[in-house]
């Protein structure tokens, strides 16, 4: 492009300024919903796909990082032995093809997939697998807790890996499918851990391109990928576009092909925008209202139940998600194994709420504070609705908005009365959520509520070591039912993952755990 072209464009722009006020919205006619794909024919190779995302990544160190914007990227590079199934309820072979279990259920021996190479050309062996899992187990301020049941890992042959457990452990396959157990070259290929994760190497469909922090992160096609013919794209670039409107405009302007998390208020209009597919993928995201049981009167189950019964979830779904979600009835979302549809999570019933208040230690009401992070319009909407819904019970709620970091600190230090929180599953097993949510001795002090029901805690731990699916279902049914009756949190709603994509994007699918497989994605001409 020449300077003259730029000058002409600049002149055109300045000259047309006056016309701007008259520019209305136009050009939208049809669109669609559901996953990307449709009848576009056979996949074609090539193309550079741009995903406009809400925030930058923090780190590529899979064993220590917790933010999704990092996880979803390095999952394209480093892969685990098993991966989550598309419905989010199970796992399927990935870098391993099968496994056997010892009679005492304490040793799992995995057969590795043949012909898998790292993007640097070196074959993946059992030594790499052992090293990778060991590194994650050691990550004391990272995901090491997920490998808590692992005693040791051995590599009896180059093609087999044995995982020795301290005790039988039901969620093992789900735990091993976590990104933090992704396979990297043994000894980081001769580099230090820090050096390695500045340009990680893995067996995944893409390899490292560049990362301009705060701007863009690019991965390029791994020609040695073990699924022959994949990936279809030459590269994927994640650009950091924190403004919702700008992401949408970049999608419409063709500068990005995927808009990560468009604002809920725009979902309806995006559905009818020509050239755009609005996807609402099933998710495991659940929003809750948490009560701090260290503060009065939230130790009183009748108070918690009254509040939970007074919240109109359908109104919340309509106001916050513009109808794109469902009221929650359980601690677990429907896309989690052992979810119980009949869990009696308390639903809107003002008369019943008043009865519970009458039985409580504060029958005439009380004043309290709801803590929310500043700048989160969805949370402010929820808080405002809950505030008005609790008035008939005589509960006077003051909404306190604090800086995100301060709000998180106060929540985790249990310096709050009520607060809004959420959860998204990391593994295809309820164990991580259940332990986090109901065990006061876990690092999270029962989801930072101090809730403590010994029988619920006992059954949660029993479900970890029971390999029978039937028994686990029974145990988790009790955990869900009892915690709902205890109303330690008000379950608000389940929401999908919204992604708007250009109509020429195919094969883009987000699992209920939030991760996606970019090797299946292709761009039609």
């Amino acid at each position, binding site marked *: *492009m*020449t*300077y003259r072209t*730029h000058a002409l*464009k*600049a002149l*055109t*722009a*300045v000259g*047309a300024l006056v*016309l*701007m*006020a008259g*520019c209305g919205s*136009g050009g939208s006619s049809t669109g669609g919903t559901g996953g990307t794909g449709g009848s576009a024919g056979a996949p074609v190779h090539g193309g550079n796909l741009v995903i*406009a995302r809400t*925030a*930058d990544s*923090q*780190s590529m160190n899979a064993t220590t*990082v*917790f*933010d999704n914007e990092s996880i979803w990227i390095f999952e394209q590079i480093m892969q685990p032995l098993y991966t989550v199934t598309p419905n989010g309820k199970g796992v399927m072979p990935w870098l391993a093809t099968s496994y056997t279990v010892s009679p005492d259920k304490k040793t799992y021996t995995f057969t590795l997939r043949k012909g898998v190479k790292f993007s640097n050309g070196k074959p993946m062996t059992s030594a790499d697998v052992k090293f990778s899992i060991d590194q994650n187990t050691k990550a*004391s*301020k990272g995901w090491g*807790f997920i490998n808590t049941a692992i005693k040791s890992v051995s590599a009896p042959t180059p093609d087999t890996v044995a995982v020795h457990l301290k005790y039988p452990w039901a969620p093992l396959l789900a735990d091993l499918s976590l990104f933090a157990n992704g396979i990297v070259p043994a000894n980081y290929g001769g580099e230090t851990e*820090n050096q390695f994760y500045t340009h990680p190497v893995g067996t995944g469909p893409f390899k490292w391109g560049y990362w*301009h*922090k*705060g*701007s*863009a992160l690019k991965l390029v096609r791994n020609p040695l990928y073990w699924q022959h013919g994949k990936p279809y794209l030459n590269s994927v670039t994640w*650009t*950091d*576009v*924190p*403004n919702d*409107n*700008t992401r949408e*405009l*970049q999608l*419409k*302007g*063709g*500068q990005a092909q995927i808009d990560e998390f468009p604002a809920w208020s725009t979902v309806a209009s995006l559905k009818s925008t020509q050239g755009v597919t609005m996807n609402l993928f099933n998710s495991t995201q659940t929003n809750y209202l948490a009560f701090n049981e260290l503060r009065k009167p939230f130790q009183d189950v009748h108070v918690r139940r009254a509040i939970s019964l007074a919240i109109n979830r359908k109104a919340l779904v309509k106001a916050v998600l513009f109808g794109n979600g469902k009221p929650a009835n359980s601690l677990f979302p429907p896309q989690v194994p052992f979810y119980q549809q009949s869990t009696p999570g308390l639903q809107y019933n003002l008369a019943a709420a008043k009865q519970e208040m009458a039985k409580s230690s504060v029958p005439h009401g009380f004043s309290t504070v709801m803590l929310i992070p500043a700048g989160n319009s969805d949370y402010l909407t929820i808080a405002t609705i809950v505030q008005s819904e609790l008035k008939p019970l005589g509960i006077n709620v003051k909404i306190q908005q604090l*800086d*995100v*970091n*301060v709000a*998180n*600190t106060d929540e*985790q230090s249990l310096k709050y009365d009520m607060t809004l929180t959420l959860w998204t599953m990391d593994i295809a097993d309820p164990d991580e959520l259940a332990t*986090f949510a109901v065990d006061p001795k876990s*690092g*999270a002090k029962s989801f930072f509520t101090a809730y403590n029901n010994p029988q619920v805690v006992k059954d949660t731990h029993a479900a970890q070591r029971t390999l029978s699916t039937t028994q686990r279902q029974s145990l988790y049914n009790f955990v869900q039912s009892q915690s709902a009756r205890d109303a330690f949190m008000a379950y608000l709603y389940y929401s999908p993952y919204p992604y708007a994509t250009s109509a020429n994007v195919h094969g883009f699918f987000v699992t209920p755990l939030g991760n996606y497989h970019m090797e299946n994605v292709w761009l039609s001409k």
Partner: protein
Amino acid sequence: MSFVGRRLLQLVPVAVGVTIVVFFMIHLIPGDPARTILQQHATPRAIAELHREWGLDRPLISQYWLFLNRLAHGNLGQSLIYGVSAASLIWQRLPATLWLIIYASVLAVLISVPLAMIAATRKDGIRDHVVRAVPLLGLGMPPFWVGFLLIYGFGITFRVFPVGGYGTGLTGHLDAMFLPALTVAIALAPVVIRSLRASMLSVLGADYITTARSKGVPARRLFFRHVLRNAVIPAITVLGINIGFLIGGTVIIENVFAIPGIGQLMINSIFQRDFPVVQGVTLVFAVLVVLVNLLADMTYASLDPRVSFDR
């Protein structure tokens, strides 16, 4: 010592003052970078481990001394979130912000000078009224809204400019940064136009202009050599002050146009409590503001022989 040398020396206490205020302010407000990293998995043990690793378990005064010591060696410290040097993050992002400020200033001048000339030479005429009234719209409209309007028009409807980003290479930057720079220029131009028009009118009524006219100096030469040169001096001061404000205020434009600039870095780092980056960015902002004001003074002196550096 020369004027420039003295002004540069004054930068040192300004910078030290900024480091003291920012360091203690950011450390004393509640919030913890360890919680940004660990999110819901922030156990006391993990938090303590990170604090030890980052040196946040030391007394505050000792941390400040370490910061000054590093600063003296040109080291701004490591970003707590990214784990890379704060200076590298800042240097990576600074060009985008400088591009925005310089490009916007150039556009503001290109818009303001001709319009002010039109207004001043047709005082109280229709053109004068139009020039005085229309640009005020730019001052009254919020920049984020002007930005979206421009994106919608030129990025979506006409598709002549990219919808945000910084671009690559000189032409890429010129292309990608045009709309954001124009957004800033639209807000900047009305102030400059008003100032320039007023000083042009004042100069046009001066005796030496009447003398020049009576000597038969051609109108074009009279305007550019005598009127504009003298009238532009107050406008430079106005522009300099506004650019100073702009340095700290680019964050909205960077957000709307997804420009990976230093303003966006500053905001993110504050939210994440990435102390070394916040300290580094603030220092850079302070230095830039001082340098812009120095540049304005130097331009002022070079245009007006009555102004001397030594007085």
